[in-house]
């Protein structure tokens, strides 16, 4: 009996020490991190913001080294990129787009001593964590402003691709706009592309011709704000503060702060406290937020935005808390209910007040 106990103890010790070895503390100067980017760093949007976050992280931990490969297709090529990172000594790998999900799982299974963080996915493992931001919360706040600023009661939304992330953003924005202006309608035009400045311009003009006097957007270039400025209508940007494209018409923009989450993760890895988890942070953690609000926005709306922000941060209420109706007027989220994170991640319907289709 004693013998078994001893053997068992030894075994746990050995196993425990290997795990501890794998994710034990590392000095910042010994930590190398690799980033897989889906677009070019120069897109001025999604990948650009991730790269600013990466640089933020490097600055926070002197001696730490990080590298990236940009424009990596969401396919088997990503495996090659991640394996190269690991061969070059990376102990931490960030995959910054949804489509890398299964490839991350494959590489992670073969490299149990490397930590992987996958952005916007839902598959985890002992050495794979996921992270994403509750951008919809910031979109809701920007909607409060846009709704109030519309006189024609038509807001145009230039939208990239019909996937849940974009649909969730449009819905949250619309709920915000309707809170300050119950008569407002949000017209959606799909681009079927993430980055095509000329097309973003045409879509903006089409919406303005259809009566929109405020433009919101989910695309990667500043073409929509630039066009709105030229046409003299208000605009809500995205990704980062886009007021340089629309100096007088930019109301605000829901923005990402990737640096804070990258610093957090790298800090955990350096301290040896990293464990697999699902990070889905929002306004509370300052992962998402609003760019500076224009002076054109009335004081009372700014106050409302702040109080709604506090309400969300308190955790007692969230954007998709019932009652919420769909386009047909049917109640989808009942009074008192709150949409689950899983349902939110798979959202494929529009709330009432959105005009447009979700292409199947």
């Amino acid at each position, binding site marked *: 009996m004693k013998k078994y106990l001893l053997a068992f103890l030894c075994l746990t010790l050995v196993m425990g020490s290997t795990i501890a070895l794998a994710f034990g503390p590392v000095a910042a100067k010994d930590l190398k991190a690799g980033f897989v980017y889906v677009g070019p760093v120069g897109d001025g949007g999604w990948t650009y913001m991730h790269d600013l976050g990466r640089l933020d992280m490097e600055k926070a931990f002197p001696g730490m080294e990080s590298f990236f490969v940009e424009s990596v297709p969401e396919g088997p090529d990503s495996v090659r990129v991640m394996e190269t990172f690991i061969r070059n000594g990376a102990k931490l790998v960030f995959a910054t787009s949804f489509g890398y999900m299964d490839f991350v799982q494959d590489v992670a299974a073969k490299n149990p001593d490397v930590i992987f963080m996958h952005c916007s996915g839902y598959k985890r493992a002992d050495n794979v964590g996921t992270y994403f931001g509750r951008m919809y919360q910031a979109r809701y706040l920007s909607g409060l402003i846009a709704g109030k600023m519309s006189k024609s009661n038509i807001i145009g939304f230039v939208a990239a691709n019909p996937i849940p992330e974009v649909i969730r953003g449009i819905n949250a924005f619309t709920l915000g706009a309707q809170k300050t202006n119950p008569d407002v309608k949000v017209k959606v035009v799909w681009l079927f592309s993430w980055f095509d400045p*000329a097309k973003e311009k045409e879509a903006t003009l089409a919406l303005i011709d259809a009566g929109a006097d405020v433009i919101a957007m989910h695309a990667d270039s500043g073409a929509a704000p630039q066009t709105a400025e030229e046409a003299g209508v208000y605009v809500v940007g995205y990704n980062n503060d886009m007021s340089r494209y629309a100096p007088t018409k930019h109301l605000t923009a829901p923005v990402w702060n990737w640096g804070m989450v990258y610093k957090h993760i790298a800090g955990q890895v350096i301290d040896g406290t990293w464990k697999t988890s699902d990070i889905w942070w929002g306004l509370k953690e300052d992962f998402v937020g609003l760019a500076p609000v224009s002076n054109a926005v009335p004081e009372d709306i700014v106050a409302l935005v702040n109080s709604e922000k506090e309400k969300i941060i308190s955790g007692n209420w969230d954007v998709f808390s019932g009652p919420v109706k769909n386009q047909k007027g049917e109640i989808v989220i009942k009074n008192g209910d709150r949409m689950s994170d899983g349902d939110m991640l798979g959202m494929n319907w529009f709330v009432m007040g959105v005009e447009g289709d979700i292409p199947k």
Partner: protein
Amino acid sequence: MDVIVPILTAAVRSGTPILYATLGEILTERSGVLNLGIEGLMLMGAFSGFIVTHTTGNPWLGVAAAFIVGVAVATIHAFLCVTIGANQVVSGLAITMFGTGASSLLGRGMIGETVGGFARIPLPFLSKIPVLGPVLFDHDPLVYFSYILVAFLTWFIFYTRPGLNLRAVGESPKVVDAMGLNSARLRYFYTLAGGGLASVGGAYMSLAYTKMWGDGMTAGRGWIAIALVIFAIWHPARAVLGAYLFGGVGAMQLRIQAAGTSFPAPLLMMMPYLLTIIVLVIISIQKGRGILLGSPGSLGVPYSREERG
């Protein structure tokens, strides 16, 4: 009319960058050289035009710079295809990759910058004509210049001696050589000129259409231009029709969405490509029947004087 005029205006606006590139490729292909590097040339033009305009504040200098850069990059293609006799498809693809990569790398520092660029200048009197006025004569100067260019190229290719030589070298460089002209020099000249025009098409994207630089901002328009050359059956005037058709369909599908109808947008987007395939089929069927339809006879075939048999 309230619906039609904005769509037609948008068709001209969004067709213009493709038109420049298509005109350039028509010149190049008419001389017998296939250049698949248009997308890369456009990106180099968009970038170089932007950076020069950003530095000097003068968009005309930007356009000039884009033309020169386009000529320079096309020189690589001409050297590989005409002097060395390399495979034109491979060389063209290499030019696209080079242009995409180089513009991306060099353009890092320009992300998020904007320029004044070209403003819209409605032409006096002409822009007051109902329908045609706003559609054709309420644009920026590069659009007006494209009208002149189309007229000039049509006249040049079909009604002048050098134009005849251009067509001849595309049909049979051997015959042109026998006439005492230098085939290689002609091919060089039109490959360079075509590259310059494609590059100006790119500069239109970053200086007139949207006044910004973004990595890969031409978004595949260079490939559309190559398809349009076939659609236009190597004729500048028909290239106008094709470019505005492509532009118009793109603008129309966005406006149909904004109007709230549920017409499937991808179906509409498919139409110009479908028309191109139909034209291609007709050309192929008619080939060798003595009709003036069809590609230049020696398109894509390297020619070397020494190997003349």
